[in-house]
């Protein structure tokens, strides 16, 4: 494992993370849209895919700092996605960029700070808390797991893997919930029994992080 030997995360790792996130969303595009069709307006997969493909085109050249790459993703998502997921993910990446501004390489604590800032941005923009059947239900437990694992001395790769598992469990836990945010909220009780599409895209993001940031296979 290269994990401990290369404990810092440079711009190229961040680039690999962004690419993997885009690949995963493209691969799950139809699933995301189908989940959204059940409780929203059937465009989450198409919109996120359009935004992330635009982000890949706009990524700065090799040697760019993590913050510059994250900011490029933020601006692409804000200007291409629309709906609620554009401003939510856009704000998340913008805040993530802010959390690591000026750093050429990130320590594990910086990676945790990056995701914590992303979560805070989403919560602030969407005014959502846990249990409301949104992407927060995947991201909040992921950030908690990441911080807890690093706090007890786990390597970054292991901590990110735990975060990704926590995100997946958090997404699973949205299935029985009643939505109170977004267009799904108008369904009330009828939103029960469906996974929240935002919680799945957030899980894909954390899985992409676990597979790339700690020196996973290059994409």
């Amino acid at each position: 494992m290269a994990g401990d030997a290369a404990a810092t995360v440079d711009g190229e790792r961040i680039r690999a993370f962004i690419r993997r996130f885009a690949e995963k969303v493209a691969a799950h595009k139809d699933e995301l849209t189908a989940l959204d069709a059940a409780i929203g307006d059937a465009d989450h997969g198409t919109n996120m895919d359009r935004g992330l493909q635009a982000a890949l085109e706009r990524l700065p050249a090799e040697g760019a700092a993590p913050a510059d790459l994250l900011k490029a993703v933020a601006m692409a998502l804000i200007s291409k996605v629309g709906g609620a997921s554009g401003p939510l993910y856009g704000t998340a990446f913008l805040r993530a960029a802010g959390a690591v501004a000026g750093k050429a390489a990130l320590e594990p604590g910086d990676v945790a700070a990056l995701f914590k800032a992303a979560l805070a941005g989403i919560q602030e923009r969407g005014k959502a808390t846990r249990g409301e059947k949104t992407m927060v239900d995947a991201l909040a437990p992921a950030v908690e797991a990441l911080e807890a694992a690093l706090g007890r001395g786990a390597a970054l790769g292991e901590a990110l893997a735990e975060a990704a598992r926590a995100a997946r469990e958090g997404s699973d836990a949205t299935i029985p919930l009643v939505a109170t945010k977004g267009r799904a909220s108008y369904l009330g009780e009828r939103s029960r029994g469906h996974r929240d599409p935002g919680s799945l895209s957030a899980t894909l993001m954390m899985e992409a992080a676990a597979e790339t940031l700690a020196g996973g296979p290059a994409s």
Partner: protein
Amino acid sequence: MKKLINRVEAVVDEATEGLGLAHPHLVRVNAEPRFVARADAPVQGKVSLVSGGGSGHEPLHGGFVGRGMLDAACPGEVFTSPVPDQMVEAAKAVHGGAGVLFIVKNYTGDVMNFELAAELLQAEGIAVRSVLVADDVAVENSLYTAGRRGVGGTVFVEKIAGAAAEAGASLEEVERIARQVSDNVRSMGMALTSCTVPAKGSPTFELGEDEMEIGIGIHGEPGRERMKLRPADEITEMLAGPVIEDLGLKQGEQVIAMVNGMGGTPLMELYIVYRKLAQILQQRGVAIARNLVGNYITSLEMQGCSITLLRADDELLRLWDAPVHTPALRWGV
């Protein structure tokens, strides 16, 4: 799906381009980012009104750009909110130096994108205020939902605030008027059939041949109740009742009334609804001071209608009567 389109991806661009070609003396269309602006904008010293939302609700909002109403409109993808780039560039293109008022329908995506756009414009030194329209009484409890949806009341806010801005009112004053309208306007809609979003290609929801849905949203969001089809008079009572109750309309008050088609209902049927609405209000001693009957905020080809009532005073009536010249609304000029 059977639609008069070329390519699914080009629907919004081509429709917006067509609007511009049809009304070159009223509006000009910017392709990238996509927005519709008043042909003579920016009007120096005038507060600029900018609105927008998902496409598929025509003539809202592009059809209401022109003298006495909106300075710019930002059409999003079908039923998807526009993005901040569109709002920022539209606002900058029409800003006459007196500030910008965003008129925002209460949908999560619209609210967040307009919020971001307002932050970006304020960072550039342009004064921005926002007014939220949330008039759909079909959504009863805002604690457990994203709140009341913004629907037909938007037309009233755009017209009346637009008249105030045209008359030279300050940003604070235009905002106050817009808020007064949004506080005093309520709507409710119903559907006989679903719409079909071009990108999806199949109806958004299924309604039986003998069924209707009361309280439906303009994107096909579920309403209050699905039931067997009833005669138009009963449907009108089911829509008007909650609107009147929610507004708390009393004998002696006056309203501006709109019977709006969802896109697939003939004018003949809308007049049948208006006939009953006029009777209901007359029985309650409420005067219809002005009215609109037609397609103003639609949901693609959905069959159905909505009723909107605005409690009016002399000031609002005077602003309503002020000249307006847009592709979809024109009087006094």
